[in-house]
């Protein structure tokens, strides 16, 4: 099994720790992982802003970088969802389709493909898990409070394998944090308010860390926590699953 590591642009630039943890975790689990150096961005920022027609260059590059792998894995629900739903290339439509189907979000890759049942990780802290919308509702990483359906959580099941972790229950299990891509600046007032409320739910339950599968949501909440002078930290789920402390 040959896995291509897809690291979203902002993770590459601002949160290399999350990417390193993803790589190390996959390696630890015996996966043959390669990071194609010429990757940039999945094109989601343009597409969600209404400019999907400008994402041709990103799509072409993505296909060029990743089409040869068996699986493509990324520590991000949002970017994975975008690629799965919107990767196209008029010059090679089948190849685009094929590539899109190979993309996996990290935690679901661990639970559904690798079928991980235990992890050698330890993280003795009180942790709040933020369900990012694209991962949850888009990729069905966990059950949704709106639906009448059985309860499950792929990232949650992995976190439960971590020794010493104390997972908190939130009042609003799956409310959006308000990041929303360019929404965070075009609708600054609502976005910031949503972020403050989301953070408050975690703080209210004494979280030491807020984790999740999407660094973008965490970046948003981190910005708010820091502005408030809070000591609570954000941490990507890969970093918890990879921690051996």
């Amino acid at each position: 099994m040959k896995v291509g590591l897809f690291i979203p642009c902002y993770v590459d630039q601002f949160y290399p720790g999350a990417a390193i943890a993803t790589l190390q975790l996959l390696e630890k689990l015996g996966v043959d992982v390669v990071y194609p150096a010429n990757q940039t961005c999945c094109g989601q920022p343009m597409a969600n802003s209404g400019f999907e027609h400008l994402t041709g260059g990103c799509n072409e590059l993505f296909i060029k970088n990743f089409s040869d792998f068996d699986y493509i894995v990324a520590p991000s629900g949002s970017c994975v969802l975008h690629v799965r739903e919107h990767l196209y290339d008029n010059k090679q439509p089948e190849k685009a389709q094929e590539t899109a189907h190979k993309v996996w979000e990290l935690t679901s890759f661990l639970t559904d493909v690798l079928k991980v049942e235990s992890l050698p990780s330890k993280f003795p802290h009180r942790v709040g898990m933020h369900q990012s919308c694209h991962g949850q509702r888009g990729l069905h990483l966990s059950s949704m409070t709106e639906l009448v359906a059985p309860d499950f959580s792929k990232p949650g099941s992995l976190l439960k394998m971590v020794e010493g972790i104390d997972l908190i229950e939130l009042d609003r299990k799956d409310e959006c944090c308000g990041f929303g891509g360019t929404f965070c600046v075009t609708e600054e007032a609502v976005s910031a308010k949503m972020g403050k409320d989301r953070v408050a739910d975690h703080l209210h339950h004494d979280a030491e860390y807020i984790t999740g599968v999407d660094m973008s949501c965490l970046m948003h909440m981190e910005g708010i926590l820091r502005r408030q002078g809070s000591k609570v930290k954000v941490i990507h789920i890969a970093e918890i699953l990879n921690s051996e402390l």
Partner: protein
Amino acid sequence: MEQATKDHAELAEIFNRDEERVDWHDETLWWIRQKRDKITHQLPEWESLRDMASQIKFNVLSNLSTYLQQFEKQALAHGIQVHWAADAKEHNEIVHRILTENQVKQMVKSKSMLTEECHLNEYLATHGIEVIDSDLGERIVQLAGEPPSHIVLPCIHKKKEEIGDLFHMYLGTPSNMADPQFLTETARGSLRETFLTRKVALTGVNFAIAETGEFVVCTNEGNADMGAHLADVHIASMGIEKLLPERKHLSVFLRLLTRSATGQPITTYSSHFSKPRPGQTMHLVLVDNGRSVQLGRKDFRNSLKCIRCGACMNTCPVYRRSGGHSYHTAVAGPIGSILAPNLDMKKYADLPFASTLCGSCSNVCPVKIDIHDQLYKWRQVLMKEGYGPAGKKLAMQAMAFTLSSPTLYHGAGKMGRLTLKYMPFAVNNKLNPWYKQRDMPEPPKQSFGEWYAENRKKK
């Protein structure tokens, strides 16, 4: 008017200046969303009910002209006078004509979002006709001179103290009286007088049955019935998409409607009107107003399945924190944001962007409209058609250009990190909307790409 010039982001920013009020608005609607969750989880067949409703509506939309003709034929046979209105203007003119023919200057109206969409009250006011809204929430916003901020809970943005002030001003209640029971009794007394003296009553239509030619009006207050039963003339306004093929299909929708809207098992009054009672005249106005255009837009056709329950608004984290008026259209929230651009792309180009695309709206929708996908698709249509700000287009072009080239991307990334590190003032300023209430991420020493090149050299 203020709302005509400001977009959603600006109006939401104004709404957010009073954070305590935003919290109250958010919690009130969240409480209703939770009531909805609780009652839907009591029905193991909930998801299949949604499926069924969605399919019934799909059938209706696919055969709309057939069902409309069948419906009209049945309605006419029962003595209902049927009118067809291509747009809001025609609808208002038809209603006005009926009122003039009956020499009436006053009308009582029960809740109808369609008449809000058509701006009927304003139109009739300019022709010297007074309309009194009989739904309590609608009456309150009417006294306040405001449009409804929610399709099911029109005055959800108002606190009881503010309602007390309004009633003090217009209905003569004592000042500083905010007891809901007392205020409701006052409104009831005042409305009773209206019901007894109005010759013409207008109602909306929740469902119309093609098979029988009857229509169904759902209210919790019984106000539609009070108006329609006491008046000599009953006018019902309905959008052409409100049809159901057969009577048996109604059971599916009545089970879904209030559970989704307010968390009730069923509306207090679901009244069937099939023919005028002796001595009464019944008019039914069938309104298109953009619906057939939307029917022709493949990507947005499903939006016509909407039964106006408001569940998407209650669950929408953006709606809850920006208030209904920020959507500057009759139907606010996620569903309004996919309906409004169909009516006027330029005026409502901002609305599909008033969302984080979290997808909760699509999950609560009782007829399974793919709301968040349609929001995404509207964004593409609107930007392609040139309804976005010029600066945004340029920025996106520059971004797409940079991200299409690994060399440019790596250079820009490095520049960005260095700027943040050595010239934080370049980004930590008032011009950066992120920085207003959030800190910027701390720039790391190296990108992951740089780290990988150093640490995994074998490749």
